C-alpha cells in the first residue's frame, strides 16, 4: 500500500487504506535498511513513533496528517538536535522551531529525521559534512556517487524513497543541483517566499528554503505548506500564497519560453545539451513559443557569488564562538585563545576557506575592489533577467553541467567544485524561483535535470512548466 506519491498517500490515509502508524512503520523499516547511505545525521525510531501517537489522538483534519518528511539538518527543530553538519554545533538542541518546519508540523507532517548536508550548506557534493559523505542511492555498488549538495541528504532521502518529501535550502543551487543528481524534483522558490527564521544562516541575501519531492504535484502541495509571511524574517514577502496545487495545469500554449544562449558552455557534455534540446522540442510541440534570449552577464555570476556568499558567511558565522552553544575547545587559557581554538577546531576546511575569503573581501582596503564590485555586477545580472522576462514567461536550461560524479574525487582545486553551480547561481543572485526536474539520462543511465526559472513570485508557472515536462517525459 506504499505509493511513491505524497498526494496518493494522503488519499490512502483519508480512505483508511493504510493507517498513519502502518505507513510510518514502513518508512522506519526502509530507513533502517539504507543506513549505509549515511543519509540521516539524526534518526530516532522512538521519536517517529511518538509523533504517530500524538497524531492518532488528534481528530483535526490536517493537510499533511501523518505524512513522513525528512528535514535538512540546517533547520532548527525543537524535538531533534540541529548540527548544520558541523562539529561546532555538535549537541546543539534548539530551543525553538524554524518557521518552515513549524508550518509543516502545523499541517500534521511527521519528521522521520534530520538529513546530512555540506557543512553549513557550503558545498556541492555533501562531502564537507563533519558526519561523513552521503552516498547517492542511484550508485552502482562498484562506484559510490555523490548526491550533489548541499542538500544531498534530503535529495537522497527522496530518491531512496525514505520519505514522501524533504526540506532543503538553496543559496546557489543547493536544492536544484542535488535534485538533478538524484533524479527527483527540487524547487527553490523566490527569495522571501519561505521565511529564513530558524535556518542556520549561510548567506542571508541568497538563502532560501524549498522542497524535494517525487513529482511536481507533490512539490506544489509541499511548497504551499512551507510558504508564507513571517514578521521575524525582515525579508519575508507579505503576499498571498496561491493555491499552487489546485491551480496546476500542463497547458503552456501561448506562453513564451526563453532559451539563454549564454548557457551553452564549452565543455558541457553532449548528453546535457541533448536533454536541453529535447525539452525545448517538447515545449514547442505542446504549443509554447520558443524565443532565444540573452543574459549577457551570465559568465560573471559564479565569481560574483564567490565574493558575496563568503562575505555574508564570514559575518553570519561569527556567532559560533564557543560561548552560547555547541563545541568549545579544551585549550582556553584566554578568551581570544578560546575563540580561535574553538573555531579552528570546530569548523571544517571548506567553511574556514570561505570565512577567510569573506573576511578578506570585507577587510579595509579591499571592500570596494571586491565586495562592492560584486554587488554592482549582481545588479547587472538581476537586470539581465528583468530584461529577459519582458520577452518571455519562463526560462529553460539544464540544471547542472553533468550527472552525479563519483565520491571521493581528489579535489585540489576548489573552483572545479564551484563550477557545478554554473547554471543555478545566476537565478540565485537575482532571487528568482527555479525548479529542477528529472528529464533524461546520461550514458551511464544516471538522471539529468532540466531547470525552469520564472519571474519573481511566479512559482505557479514554474510548476506548470515542470508538470508539462514531467508528463511528456513519462
Amino acid at each position, binding site marked *: 500500500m506504499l505509493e511513491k506519491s505524497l498526494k496518493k498517500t494522503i488519499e490512502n490515509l483519508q480512505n483508511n487504506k493504510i493507517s498513519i502508524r502502518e505507513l510510518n512503520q514502513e518508512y522506519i523499516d526502509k530507513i533502517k535498511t539504507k543506513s549505509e547511505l549515511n543519509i540521516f545525521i539524526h534518526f530516532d525510531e522512538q521519536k517517529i513513533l511518538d509523533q504517530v501517537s500524538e497524531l492518532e489522538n488528534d481528530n483535526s483534519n490536517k493537510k499533511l496528517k501523518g505524512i513522513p518528511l525528512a528535514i535538512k539538518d540546517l533547520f532548527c527543530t525543537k524535538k531533534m538536535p540541529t548540527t548544520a553538519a558541523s562539529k561546532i554545533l555538535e549537541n546543539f*538542541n534548539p*530551543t*525553538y522551531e524554524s518557521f518552515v518546519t513549524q508550518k509543516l508540523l502545523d499541517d500534521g507532517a511527521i519528521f522521520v529525521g534530520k538529513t546530512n548536508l555540506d557543512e553549513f550548506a557550503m558545498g556541492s557534493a555533501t562531502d564537507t559534512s563533519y558526519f561523513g559523505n552521503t552516498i547517492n542511492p542511484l550508485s552502482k555498488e562498484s562506484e559510490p556517487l555523490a548526491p550533489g549538495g548541499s542538500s544531498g541528504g534530503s535529495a537522497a532521502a527522496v530518491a531512496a524513497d525514505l520519505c514522501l518529501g524533504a526540506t532543503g535550502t538553496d543559496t546557489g543551487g543547493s536544492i536544484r543541483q542535488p535534485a538533478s543528481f538524484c533524479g527527483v524534483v527540487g524547487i527553490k522558490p523566490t*527569495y*522571501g517566499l519561505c521565511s529564513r527564521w530558524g535556518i542556520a544562516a549561510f548567506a542571508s*541575501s541568497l538563502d532560501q528554503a524549498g522542497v524535494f519531492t517525487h513529482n511536481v504535484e507533490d512539490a506544489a502541495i509541499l511548497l504551499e505548506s512551507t510558504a508564507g509571511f513571517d514578521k521575524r524574517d525582515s*525579508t*519575508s*514577502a*507579505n503576499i498571498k500564497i496561491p493555491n499552487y496545487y489546485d491551480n496546476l495545469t500542463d497547458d503552456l500554449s501561448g506562453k513564451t519560453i526563453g532559451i539563454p544562449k549564454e548557457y551553452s558552455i564549452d565543455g558541457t557534455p553532449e548528453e546535457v545539451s541533448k536533454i536541453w534540446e529535447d525539452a525545448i522540442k517538447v515545449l514547442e510541440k505542446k504549443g509554447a513559443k520558443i524565443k532565444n534570449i540573452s543574459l549577457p*552577464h551570465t559568465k*560573471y555570476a559564479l*565569481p*560574483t557569488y*564567490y*565574493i558575496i556568499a563568503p562575505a555574508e558567511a*564570514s559575518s553570519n558565522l561569527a556567532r559560533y*564562538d*564557543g*560561548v*552560547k*552553544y*555547541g*563545541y*568549545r575547545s579544551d585549550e*582556553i*587559557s584566554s*578568551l*581570544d*585563545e*578560546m*575563540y*580561535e581554538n574553538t*573555531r*579552528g*577546531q570546530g*569548523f571544517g576546511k571548506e567553511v*574556514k*576557506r570561505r*570565512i*577567510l*575569503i569573506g*573576511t*578578506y573581501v570585507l*577587510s579595509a582596503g579591499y571592500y570596494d575592489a*571586491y565586495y562592492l*564590485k*560584486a*554587488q*554592482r*555586477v*549582481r*545588479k*547587472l545580472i538581476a537586470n539581465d533577467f528583468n530584461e529577459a522576462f519582458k520577452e518571455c514567461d519562463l526560462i529553460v536550461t539544464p540544471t547542472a553541467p553533468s550527472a552525479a560524479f563519483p565520491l571521493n574525487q581528489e579535489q585540489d*582545486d*576548489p*573552483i572545479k567544485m564551484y563550477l557545478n553551480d554554473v547554471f543555478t547561481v545566476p537565478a540565485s543572485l*537575482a*532571487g528568482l524561483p527555479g525548479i529542477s526536474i528529472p528529464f533524461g539520462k546520461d550514458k551511464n543511465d544516471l538522471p539529468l535535470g532540466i531547470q525552469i526559472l520564472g519571474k*519573481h513570485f511566479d512559482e505557479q508557472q514554474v510548476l506548470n512548466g515542470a508538470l508539462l515536462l514531467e508528463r511528456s517525459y513519462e
Partner: protein
Amino acid sequence: MKIDKNTINKIARLSRIKLDDKESEDYIKDLNHILDWVEQLNEVDTEKVEPLSNISSSILPKREDISNDANSSDEILKNAPDKLEGFFAVPKVVE
C-alpha cells in the same frame, strides 16, 4: 601574490580562527587562486551601476520596540558549554 603569510595571519586573526602551518600554506594557495579567478569581474564596467545588496522587493518593515522574548534563560543555558549562576561562563578576561 595577493595573499602572503602575513596577510593570511591577519585574516585568520580577524576571523578568530587558529590555523596550523600546513593549513596556512594551503589557504595561501587557495585564496590566491580564487582571488585571481574572481578578478575577471574587473572586465565589467560598473561605473554607473548601483550595488545590489538585497533582492527583496519588500520595503523593510519597522517593528515596535517591545520585548517579545519567549525563551527562558534556563532553557537557553542548557546549550552552553560552560555556565555559572545563570550566566554563560568564559575564561577570565580581566586580572
